[in-house]
């Protein structure tokens, strides 16, 4: 299945990415934001807050935004 992933860590680009059926938000997070602490990231699926065991569906819109970003 394909998921629209908006990664606001770094470039902030939106891309459709492949995800296996039954992938949870927690697994998706671990794969796409390695080394990041989930507590430091605002995660929304289809603009809604979800639990970590939420199972993603085809066409879902996943947004991940760091909540601790250093200015300059």
């Amino acid at each position, binding site marked *: 299945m394909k998921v629209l992933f*908006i990664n*606001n*860590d*770094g*470039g*902030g*680009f*939106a891309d459709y990415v492949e995800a296996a059926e039954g992938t949870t938000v927690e697994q998706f997070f671990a794969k796409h934001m390695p080394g990041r602490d989930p507590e430091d990231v*605002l995660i929304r699926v289809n*603009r809604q807050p979800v639990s970590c065991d939420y199972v993603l569906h085809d066409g879902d819109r996943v*947004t991940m*935004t*760091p*909540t*601790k*970003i*250093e*200015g*300059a």
Partner: protein
Amino acid sequence: MKTNPSDADLIRIAGSIHEQLHTMKHSRFDHLERRIDQFLQTAEDVRTIRRRLCLARERGWDRAASRLLGQLERPLRNIPYEAEQVGRSADEAQAEGPSLRDVYFELKQTHEELGPLGFEPKNQELSVVTEPITLEGFHLGPFEVRLEVQSLGDGHSTAYRIVALDPHPAASNDAVTHPHVSDERLCAGDAAAAIEAALGAGRVFDFFTLVISVLRTYNPNSPFVSLDDWYGTGCYECGYMMAQDDVRWCELCEHDFCSECASYCTRCDETTCVRCLQSCPVCGESVCTSCMADCPDCGRPLCKNCLDDEQCPCHEEEEEDDEQTTSQDANAGEDGRHRTGDVQPGPASRDQSVDIAISATRPPSAT
């Protein structure tokens, strides 16, 4: 500023944003055309060099041919970069903009999660107010993030402002209301690219979230004003708190001073504190300890200028003593009371000369 906008208001605002994004899409095509022109110009330069190279070979101009090969280096180096830029610009121009519905949901999400969303119809400004922000114990107050919808197409970094609602600016600069905000502009650092991408795609909620995340985080490596200096620097002498620009550094004792407690050496012009200056006993000028020296004859401290000019008072005293001795010697000779037997032969020091002079003036009964 209107807060708590109705659904109708949100739709109207979404319409403005959508329109701006449409304008941006046109400007992206213009940008792509400029990139392609640049790429073609470089390719044309290569073609020109090739034509000249053929001519040089036909005529047997080997040195000219070698020189032309050198000229190929620059365009060949630029072509991959320019091709990449064309590809990137094409991707940007091709990117589908958000629908009006998408923008509406962005506004709605912003209002629900970060709201209440403020809207100023006159300036077409959207705004969100943060909670009072405290960084490492420094209370900075709440901030209003204002996004100017009409500026979205002009350039992203100028499309928004950060307004301190209860300003606690740095002592050294009133314009710095947050370590990463100066003149209402955020230096977004690591979030800059993501903010630009969010604005370009009409993702209003992501934009506000990113900006607020930066405001809640302190980067001690590159602030406009460090939190360590937020309240200014205290004068080492009197304790007066001053802005960083007003601090005078004393090179000698290596402390910060205010303008009242600092001065400068009249010899070397070095800034020093008042305590590190001495008054030269000869010229009376205030001189730093580096520009003072001890007279090798009498050990008196005086400035190096006066020392070089042999202005130490001991020289004058010596001359006076010599004159006095000579005149007393002459008087003693005339009176026939000069007791040459008291004087030891050989060279005498200045002190010895004085002793001799004194003994020569004493009455015979005292010796």
